[in-house]
C-alpha cells in the first residue's frame, strides 16, 4: 500500500501502476489527467441534473467550476467522488480517476480511495466536523485508517498538519473541539484533513464562501501554496468570479446542468464568449472599481431542470437567441484552449 504515499511531485511516481496514460487532446498536457469526466450525465429517473459533462484536471492544476445555484456544479463533484446518493445516480458517461473507471469499482474500493487519493472540502466546516471529537483526532483518523499508522504517530503527524495549515499553537489547538475554534480555523482543520494522506485530487465545494474576506484571502493563499508544494490537482467550485481570478488555472462555466464554456482563466476573463459567461462578468461588483447606475443584470431566472427549454437552456434569457438555439449547441473549440457551447459565440455588438 505504500505507492500511494510516494510524493506526487517526484518524477518516479508516474510509475505507480494505477496511473494509466490517458488520451491527452492537447500538446500542453504532458501529464495524464488525474481526473477525467467523459460525457457524464447525472440525475434521477425523472430529470437530468448534469448533462453530458466532460472535463479533465491535470496534476498541479486548479480547475474552477463556476455557476449559479442548481447548475449542477456540486453534483458533478459528488459524482467524481463517488458520493451520489439515491435517487440521483450516474446515468451515462464515464469517470476516470488515476486511469481507473470509477464505475467499475465497488463501494469498498471507493472508500479506500476517498480520504487517501481524493478528498473533499465542503462549504460549512463547522457542520462537516464532528462536534464531539477533538479536531486533532479527526485529522489523524485518515492516517490511521489509510496509512495504518498507530494513533500515537498519527496524532503527531496531525499536529504537524495543523501547524502546516497555519494554525498558531498547533499542539493546543489539535486538542480543541470544533466549537472552540473560529470558522476560519475550522476550515483550516478541514484542509489539514484533506491533505493528510497527500491526495492526488482535492475537491473544494464553496470552501471559502462562508468565510470573511480576510480569512478567505488567507485560505486561498494557503491552498495555492500547499498545491505548489504537493502538486495536487484541485477542483474548486465557486459562484464567485473574483475567487476564480484568485485561484484558477482553467475554468468551466456551468448553466442548468451543462458546461457551456471552458478555457484558461485568462481566456474566460479576457474574452468570455458564451452570453451567460458574459452576463456573469457584467454583473460583477468589485469594491475597487466603481459601478454607478444600473447593473447589467441577466433578466429572468434559471429554468427548473424539469422545465428546461428545448435546445440551449439559456435561450429564454439570452439576448442573442434565435430559432437555431432550439438545437442544443455542442461545446466547440474557439481559439487554442477555449470551448463554448453557443451558436453565436463572441461579444455581441
Amino acid at each position, binding site marked *: 500500500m505504500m505507492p500511494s504515499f510516494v510524493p506526487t511531485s517526484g518524477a518516479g511516481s508516474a510509475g505507480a501502476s494505477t496511473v494509466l496514460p490517458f488520451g491527452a487532446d492537447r500538446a500542453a498536457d504532458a501529464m495524464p489527467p488525474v481526473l477525467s469526466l467523459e460525457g457524464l450525465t447525472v440525475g434521477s429517473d425523472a430529470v437530468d441534473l448534469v448533462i453530458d459533462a466532460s472535463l479533465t484536471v491535470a496534476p498541479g492544476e486548479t480547475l474552477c467550476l463556476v455557476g449559479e445555484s442548481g447548475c449542477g456544479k456540486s453534483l458533478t463533484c459528488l459524482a467524481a467522488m463517488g458520493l451520489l446518493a439515491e435517487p440521483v445516480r450516474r446515468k451515462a458517461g464515464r469517470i476516470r480517476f488515476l486511469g481507473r473507471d470509477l464505475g467499475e469499482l465497488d463501494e469498498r474500493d471507493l472508500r479506500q480511495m476517498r480520504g487517501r487519493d481524493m478528498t473533499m472540502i465542503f462549504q460549512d466546516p463547522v457542520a462537516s466536523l464532528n462536534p464531539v471529537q477533538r479536531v486533532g483526532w479527526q485529522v489523524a483518523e485518515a492516517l490511521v485508517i489509510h496509512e495504518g499508522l498507530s494513533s500515537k504517530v498519527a496524532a503527531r503527524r496531525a499536529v504537524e498538519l495543523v501547524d502546516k495549515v497555519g494554525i498558531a499553537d498547533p499542539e493546543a489547538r489539535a486538542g480543541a473541539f470544533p466549537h472552540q475554534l473560529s470558522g476560519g480555523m475550522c476550515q483550516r482543520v478541514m484542509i489539514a484533513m484533506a491533505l493528510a494522506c497527500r491526495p492526488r485530487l482535492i475537491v473544494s465545494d464553496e470552501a471559502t464562501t462562508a468565510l470573511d474576506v480576510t480569512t478567505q484571502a488567507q485560505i486561498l493563499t494557503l491552498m495555492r501554496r500547499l498545491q505548489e508544494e504537493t502538486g495536487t490537482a484541485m477542483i474548486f467550485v465557486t*459562484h464567485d468570479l473574483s475567487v476564480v481570478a484568485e485561484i484558477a488555472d482553467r475554468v468551466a462555466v456551468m448553466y442548468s446542468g451543462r458546461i457551456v464554456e471552458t478555457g484558461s482563466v485568462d481566456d474566460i476573463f479576457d474574452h468570455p464568449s458564451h452570453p451567460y459567461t458574459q452576463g456573469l462578468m457584467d454583473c460583477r461588483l468589485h469594491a475597487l472599481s466603481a459601478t454607478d447606475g444600473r*447593473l447589467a443584470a441577466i433578466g429572468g431566472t*434559471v429554468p427548473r431542470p424539469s422545465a428546461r427549454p428545448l435546445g440551449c437552456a439559456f435561450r429564454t434569457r439570452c439576448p442573442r437567441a434565435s430559432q437555431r438555439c432550439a438545437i442544443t449547441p455542442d461545446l466547440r473549440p474557439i481559439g487554442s484552449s477555449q470551448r463554448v457551447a453557443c451558436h453565436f459565440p463572441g461579444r455581441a455588438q
Partner: protein
Amino acid sequence: MTAAVLELRDVTRHYGGKRQWLGRGAAIRAVDGVDLTLAAGEVLGIVGESGSGKSTLGRIAAGIEAPSSGMVTFQGQRYAPIDTAAWRRQRRRVQVVFQNPSQALDPRLTIAAQIRGVLAAHGIEALERGVDRTEAILSRVGLTGLGTRFPHQLSGGQLQRAVIARALVLSPEVIVCDEAVSALDVSVQAQILNLLKDLQAELGVAYLFISHDLGVVRHVSHRIAVMQRGRIVETGPASEVFARPQDPYTRSLIAALPAATPAARRARDAARQAA
C-alpha cells in the same frame, strides 16, 4: 438629503454579564458606543466581518432590539419601549429585509395574503384611491400576477422581491437591509440591487445597508461606515473610503479583497513579492 431621519447616539448593546453562580459573567459588547446619522433618502452602508456587531446595530436601528444604553431617535423622536402601541406605530416607518427570504415568509400563506396581513396588522386600508395596494406593490417589484403563489413556488430572487414588497407596502421612511442580497446568485443579486436602487430613487426611502460584501456596499451606498468589534472605525463617502482608507482595519479589509481579474492578481502578487 439633509434632515436626519434616523439618529443613533452613543448606542451600546451588551450581551451576557448576568449574575452567575459565582460572580458575574463577562459581557460581550456587540455594539460599543456607536454614533450614526441616516439622512432622509440616503443609503448608508455598514460593512464589517462576522461578529463585528453590524447585525445587532441593524436590529437596534430598526427598533426590534433595545440598546443597553444610548439613544435612538426616529425623526427626532425616541423609540417607544418595545411591544407598546406607540412602538408598533413606529415600526411601520422602519422596515427590515433580512438575508434569507424563504425564512422571512410564511410557507402556508400566499404572497398576496402575507402582504394583506401586514396592511391589516397596521390598520391600513387595502385600497388606496380604488387601487389595490397589494397588487400595486407586487407589480412595482416585478411580481405582477404572482400574488396567488405560495413561497415554495417562487425562486430565491422572486422571494426576496416579495419580502421587499411586504416592507414597502407600509411606505416606510427607512429600510434596514441586513445582507439582503448575500444569499442570492450573482445574476439575481444584480436584479435585486437594481430594484432597490430604483425604489430608492423613486420613493426617496433611506436604506441602512448592512453587508459583508464590500463590492455590493460600494455599489449601493452614498456613505459607508466600517465596523470592527462593535465600534465604527471609519465613515465617509463610499468612493472616498475605498480610494483612501484611513483606518488600518479598513485598509486590511481592502487588501484582502480578491483580485478582480487574473491579470490584476498577477500584478498584485508581483508587487507584494517586490515589497
